[in-house]
């Protein structure tokens, strides 16, 4: 009796849901379509297949220089953020003191502070410290941005950890450091790896702060991409976009294999 109505409702929800997922996927499909299209603007249905934008990117000195800047920053930012993030999430999970909630909100705040505000604030600080336009400035900015992501994934792992294992280790005479290194660290490794992946991907794609604090010498890939879209509309941006998508696919696989995609938020 009520079945008919239910089935009707079910199909409606499914159609709506699938439409939403299509909407989410469109940009990725569009980018892939246009990256392999020979014309400046892609056509649908595609007329021809070409890899000319990829060739152009890899032959361009500017793109290669930006690729190097981005990679360098990412390689330095990721381990530092993971180190800071892991140490602090572990300490905060095990400590209880008045004002702990405040500290927690503070270290997660880069997620909530409007990105334009963070960019301006760091621009001003770096100008007064003489770090404006330096790679070091970029690195610092990226660590601030990436930090909450590491804290989030590592905290998930720590919450799932049985703290009696640590107690047992300490009762057997280990120092806190030995316990952390031999018991805790191996157990929270998945969270740390997922955090590292998040930090790396976020750093590589970061634009809001980078745009404020970089100069032509330290331009990263997203900042250069922004410039090309904003001013000249160079279709080789298409090829760059595919590189980003490929990276995110790799990141997806690693996150799924470590903490699982469902634990991301």
């Amino acid at each position: 009796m009520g079945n008919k109505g239910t089935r009707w409702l079910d199909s409606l929800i499914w159609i709506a849901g699938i439409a939403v997922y299509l909407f989410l996927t469109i940009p990725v499909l569009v980018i892939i379509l246009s990256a392999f299209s020979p014309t400046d603007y892609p056509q649908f249905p595609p007329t021809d297949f070409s890899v000319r934008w990829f060739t152009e990117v890899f032959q361009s000195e500017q793109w290669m220089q930006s690729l190097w800047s981005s990679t360098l920053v990412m390689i330095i930012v990721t381990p530092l953020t993971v180190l800071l993030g892991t140490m602090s999430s572990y300490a905060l999970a095990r400590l209880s003191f008045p004002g702990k909630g405040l500290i927690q909100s503070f270290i997660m705040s880069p997620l909530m502070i409007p990105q334009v505000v963070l960019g301006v604030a760091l621009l001003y600080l770096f100008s007064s410290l003489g770090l404006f336009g330096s790679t070091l400035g970029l690195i610092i900015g990226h660590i601030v941005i990436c930090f909450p992501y590491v804290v989030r994934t590592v905290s998930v792992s720590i919450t799932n950890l049985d703290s009696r294992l640590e107690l047992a280790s300490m009762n057997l005479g280990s120092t806190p450091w030995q316990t952390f290194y031999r018991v805790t660290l191996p157990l929270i490794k998945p969270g740390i790896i997922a955090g590292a992946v998040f930090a790396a991907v976020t750093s590589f794609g970061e634009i809001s702060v980078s745009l404020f604090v970089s100069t032509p010498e330290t331009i990263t890939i997203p900042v250069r991409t922004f410039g090309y879209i904003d001013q000249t509309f160079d279709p080789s941006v298409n090829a760059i976009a595919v590189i980003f998508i490929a990276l995110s696919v790799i990141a997806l696989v690693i996150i799924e294999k470590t903490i699982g995609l469902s634990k991301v938020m």
Partner: protein
Amino acid sequence: MKATRQKKFYGVLLAPTLIFLGIFLLLPLIQLLILSFQQVDNFFEVIDGYTFSHYIEVLTTPVYLKTIWQTLFVAVITTVICLVLAYPAAYLLVRSPKRWRAFFYILLVSPLLTSVVIRTFAWIILLAQNGLVNDVLMKTSIIDEPLDMLWNMNAVIIAYVQVMLPFAVLPIATAMSDIKGNLRSASMILGSNRISTFFRVTLPLTIPGMISGAMIVFSLAAGSYITPLLVGGRMQPLLPLSIYQQIMQVYNLPLAAAMAFTLMVLVFLVIAVLGYILKKWEVRVNG
């Protein structure tokens, strides 16, 4: 003895983070706050003396007031659309068979891992005069002349919704999957149909997920400037864009700082209100 040694160890682990974020997060914000009260000369050079004039300018000039309203409006619209679209998406994620679920998760998380520049770029390809949507519409003779879909607020909102939707779907899905199946069965056995079960059981229990999603989407939509710059153009009345222009083109840093703090206070106020509602709601539902 042991307890203090442990505490010391945890303190040592926490200290580097606090020092780092103190210098590179707290200090710059304090500097910016001070800057927003500093006087400028006619060339916008900072001079001695403090003033409220930048805040007065931001909060009384009609242009800036309109900008503030528009910023809040766009952020609210984006949040509402995201929540409405997130619901069926979260439903599919939670209720679909396992193999499908992994696929939906990939579609949801992959945008979070792709640079916002790239995702916005895709909307330019789609919506431009000679872009894909116009191409398809013209070829199928639905329209004769290309539509102007780029460089307006609609384009900004469409791109925002696409960029931020996963942030709304994921918390709602988590809340939904926490609902025990027998709660819904109980409601149905007691004679409710699916629609009233939805409104009396499922919806109230997913409100916390919706609120946490709304907090993130709202703060992102109110504070981004990259997406509006690229698909909306430089002239859209949005506060983050005004800040960007004051810094990059006008060089009036104290005014930009005052705008930045106005923006931040507005965002935090909205988040605080949402957080308050969340707390009240959880008390009401869980007792």
